[in-house]
């Protein structure tokens, strides 16, 4: 069963092709990685899936629903959550508010109830607070719930981004270089964490990563991009021995 199918998706910046003929078959519950050299179009793929960019060609179906042409908030409300390569938290807001904001689409009350604090407002707000505190506790952030996000150290900001992405109750989670700037010990912890949240929240995970240790360690399948084109798709073992991949990363391999 596939949760996300991308079919011949292409995107151009001006005359420049960022992604061409991108195909993806992501199965329910899978943990898949996208790798490729800098400028290969990995983040562009995430931006296309989440609706930040509109694909100029092709189609993408999430749980059978066409998502090309939908606005980013609609796609997020369909339960696709993501983090960012360069952290994009709501810096001047509290850690708790960062997580509460991501409950927007699920908060089941309207503008009048919001203006008057009547009806479903109290119950829903309490539910959001409880869920937010639960998510913060998973990431060991409950002690800093009242701090401004910008005041957190780098590592905690990374964790908060994942907590915030989980607040939209995603079925598909996109992680954009989650291990960036981490030391080997932190990467080990992150690998355990990713596998744990995948179980706990019943997630399908698609991640972009340069740290081969993480990609080869936890991904079940890997797709390699270069200059917007797919070079190879397969298991970590297959990718490690793929001649085209080695070429893209290391230059032409003599006799390869």
């Amino acid at each position, binding site marked *: 069963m596939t949760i996300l199918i991308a079919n011949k998706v292409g995107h151009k910046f001006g005359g420049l092709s960022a992604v061409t003929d991108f195909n993806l078959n992501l199965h329910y519950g899978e943990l898949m990685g996208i790798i490729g050299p800098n400028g290969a179009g990995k983040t562009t793929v995430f931006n296309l899936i*989440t*609706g*930040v960019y509109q694909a100029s060609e092709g189609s993408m179906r999430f749980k059978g629903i066409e998502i090309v042409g939908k*606005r*980013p*908030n609609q796609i*997020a*409300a369909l339960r696709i959550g*993501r983090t*960012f390569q360069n952290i*994009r*938290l*709501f*810096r*001047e*807001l*509290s850690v*708790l*508010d960062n997580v*509460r*904001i*991501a*409950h*927007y*689409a*699920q*908060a089941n*009350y309207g*503008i009048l109830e*919001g*203006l*008057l*604090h009547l009806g479903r*407002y*109290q119950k829903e*707000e*309490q539910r*959001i*607070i409880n869920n*937010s*505190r639960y998510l913060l506790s998973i990431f060991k952030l*409950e*002690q800093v*719930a*009242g701090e401004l996000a910008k005041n957190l150290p780098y590592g905690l900001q990374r964790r908060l981004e994942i907590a*915030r*992405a989980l*607040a*939209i109750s995603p079925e598909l989670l996109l992680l954009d270089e989650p291990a960036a700037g981490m030391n080997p010990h932190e990467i080990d912890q992150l690998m355990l964490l990713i596998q744990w949240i995948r179980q706990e929240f019943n997630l399908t995970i698609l991640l972009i990563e340069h740290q081969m240790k993480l990609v080869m360690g936890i991904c079940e399948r890997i797709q390699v991009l270069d200059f917007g084109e797919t070079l190879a798709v397969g298991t970590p073992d297959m990718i490690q021995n793929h001649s085209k991949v080695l070429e893209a990363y290391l230059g032409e391999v003599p006799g390869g």
Partner: protein
Amino acid sequence: MSVLLIKQWNSLLENDWLVPVLLTLGFGLSFAIPEYNLFSVYVQLIMMYIGINIILAVSLNLVNGYMGEFSLAHAGFMAVGAYSSVLLTMKVLPVADYPLLFPCAVFIGGVVAALLGMIIAVPSFKVRGDYLAIITLAFLMIVKSMIENIDFMGGPRGIPGIMKLTTMPWVFFWTATLVWIVRNFVFSKYGRAVMAIREDEIASDLMSVDTKKVKFFAFMLSSFCAGIAGALFAHLLQFISPRIFDITKSTDILIMVYLGGIASLGGSILGATIYTVLLEILRPSTMAALLSWLPSFMFDPLQAHLITHLGTWRMVIMPLALIMVMLYWPRGVMGLREFRGFIPRAHKQAHHHN
């Protein structure tokens, strides 16, 4: 020192019963003050202007402070509220016979302003920052020149002889109600979304926030409040003309917001009060009256050298004061903080570790 004072103030406001008690007391006083002339008519007038300015500051803070945009259009929304309510009370509704039609006229003034607020909301989907500020400025100029060119609305000479329908209880009622509604908005998913848009619009979208809808609501609520303030203002001053609602009126509101503090309702209330009172104190006649208890050997030289020139100087002193505030308190007195009395209990507890 000031931190200590704010802490004291906050712990006082922590009590759940305090805000309702103050509201009841204030509402009672708003009837008692004019009835028994507890203050002079002049002071009563200033008190009503403070109320109207609080509404304006809170309204502008929603856009400039919470959403992080820069609106210069608020004098325009005020004008829309003022003119539409005045046309109603003068030409349509028999207010003299049915006094309760006045709040209806004020409400309709706010609704008309809110509808025009949608016109500003639409460009805000595409344009941000300085460019949106210029669009709001253009909106203000359009409103002003439209009124100037429609004879039906008094043209450039304005409309004199408006009934004085704005009374202290009405000012108190509208101020309290609108501050309460804006506070509710701020402490709802919509208010949090407005702040998220200020911080990072794309990230907000990706966290499922319907940014277009939220901007619509925020601009409409903000212009609704400004329209109400305009309607109250018109029926207090008893005269309106397009010149009253020009860019200087917008800057007045801006000063109140930035003085009091961005993204803070308490700050807006403080800023509007301080600014209104300061402007009045710096009038020659007020200053002379305030210092009249001094013995004449002290009062006379002050009167000769300082007080008579205040009329000129106050337009220097106020901007200078604002520059000082911006230099030393870049976010205003209460920037990004809130009186704890305004924060709903569940939200207060949520930030504390159990």
